[in-house]
């Protein structure tokens, strides 16, 4: 499942999967609150094995949908070798 799809599921809004990739996740964009961010990162971790909060200490990854997607793609398979194995 891609980051936009995960986002749509967390928000309970299928249309969110088609938002422009440059949409900010926090203020000036979707305005996600911390509760939603916690859920989003938990879902991302469950789906991709990438623990964004653990890997990105500044959480620059959370700037936009695109930055989160890029971060997850860059770390997919490296963060959890056990999960990455099935993918290659």
């Amino acid at each position: 499942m891609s980051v936009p799809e995960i986002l749509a599921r967390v928000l309970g809004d299928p249309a969110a999967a088609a938002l422009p990739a440059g949409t900010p996740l926090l203020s000036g964009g979707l305005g996600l609150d911390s509760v939603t961010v916690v859920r989003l990162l938990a879902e991302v971790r469950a789906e991709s094995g990438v623990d964004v909060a653990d890997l990105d200490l500044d959480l620059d990854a959370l700037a936009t949908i695109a930055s989160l997607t890029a971060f997850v793609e860059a770390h997919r398979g490296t963060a959890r070798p056990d999960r990455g194995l099935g993918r290659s």
Partner: protein
Amino acid sequence: MRIGIVGAGNIGGTLATLFTRSGHEVALANSRDPRTLAGQVAALGPRAHAATAAEAAAFGEVVVLAIPLGAYADLPPEPFAGRIVVDANNYYPARDGRIAELDSGALTSTGLLARHLPDARVTKAFNTIHWEHLRDLGRPDAPAADRRAIPIAGDDAAAKAVLTDLIDQIGFTAVDTGLLVDSWRQQPDTPVYGAEVSADQATVLIAQARR
């Protein structure tokens, strides 16, 4: 709005100043005879008066607790019934004594308070900000993005909305950490604790908390 403040020290005294300045009526209490607060309430002006803890709770639509956490069991639960309680306290074992349920993580410190005050609408706020920053960094005229964030938690959404508005009036911006069970994310030793950050930064720090 009528606000009771139990604890007249660094945090309670600072909030008394900020809330009276914003036009609210404040009843201020410490652990002793209210007469010991005569000088402090005189300095706060006509919107403030001294009270016992029970009187401050009965007076306030909102009641802030800013006492050493270990003293929570001294509070009489009855006058807190129906009140929006704002817990500013932190658990410091060296000061408060060891509390097994907090050490194990079975309860958050605000959850412990909520159990003691079963009929109150308990929230958590002001626990992550040093009192001098609370005193000095409020910017009521600044846009929300330029203000320092104050994390809040609680199970009662309407109570959190009242709290969010009060925080806005004194020049900060509230960031929702979640329910009381989530409030460990803003307890001591978490990323957002003590952090001088904007709402967006606080949001990511809260999401980053680990236990």
